[in-house]
């Protein structure tokens, strides 16, 4: 099955761009990024539950998120600040994973209306160095492919 998500990561550069077209009006696509309860839903998976500890969706606002495993143990903590928060258009924010030597990344997230019921999301992320970007790209590898496959299976079985 062809993946709808496209990734552009040029060799030797410290940024990458993720694009995806959604079968959703741009207002709903933005809402999925602006309401903590919704973000928690789509960022969670059977192995980790995502929680927005703090979320101030506005210029100069900040956010803190964490993920817990099935036993309630915190496995991931991240945070950042918003520099732009323009409904249905753009979110500019920083992101930093706690206790990981990966520095701070800058994320420029743009929302585009394609038709009344379709939209496009473009996330341009700039990392501190080429090495950090490449390390992050390889991280899902480390988690193990079988786990990823289990996850897909579970997500797909829940969809109607």
């Amino acid at each position, binding site marked *: 099955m062809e993946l709808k998500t496209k990734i552009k990561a040029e060799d030797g550069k410290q940024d990458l761009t993720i694009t*995806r077209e959604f*079968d959703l009006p741009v207002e*709903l696509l933005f809402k*999925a990024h602006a309401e903590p309860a919704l973000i928690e839903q789509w960022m969670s998976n059977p192995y980790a539950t995502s929680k927005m500890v703090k979320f101030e969706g506005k210029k100069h606002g900040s956010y803190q998120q964490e993920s817990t495993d099935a036993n309630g143990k915190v496995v991931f903590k991240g945070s950042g600040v918003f520099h732009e928060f323009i409904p249905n258009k753009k979110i500019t924010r920083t992101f930093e994973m706690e206790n990981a030597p990966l520095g701070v990344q800058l994320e420029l997230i743009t929302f585009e209306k394609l038709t009344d019921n379709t939209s496009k999301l473009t996330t341009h992320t700039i990392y501190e160095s080429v090495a950090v970007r490449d390390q992050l790209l390889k991280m899902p590898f480390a*988690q193990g492919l079988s786990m990823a496959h289990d996850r897909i299976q579970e997500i797909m079985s829940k969809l109607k």
Partner: protein
Amino acid sequence: MNLRRDVFQAISDPTRRAILVLVASQAMTAGAIASNFDTARPTVSKHLQILTECKLLEQEQSGREVYYNINTNKMKEIADFIEPFRKMWDDRYNKLESVMKKYKPDKIK
């Protein structure tokens, strides 16, 4: 001493990428490859050596000439390494789409 070559390090150099593009169209000798660059011949040889060591290029003897061929399997490996990351985001976005589709339109705004 040969250092262990990282394939991603190998393709991070623009000249080496240009060599791969050249050789992708047809097998070529070192001389024919070098004639496409202003770079000194020994520098091109060094690039060919690195690309061969990380198996992106393969050498093939044909009479007195050595031809360089592209190793498509190795090239495919590079393209594949980004796939788990792409899959992770694709899963998340598929979920986003299904979560938002259950959302009632009158709740917008």
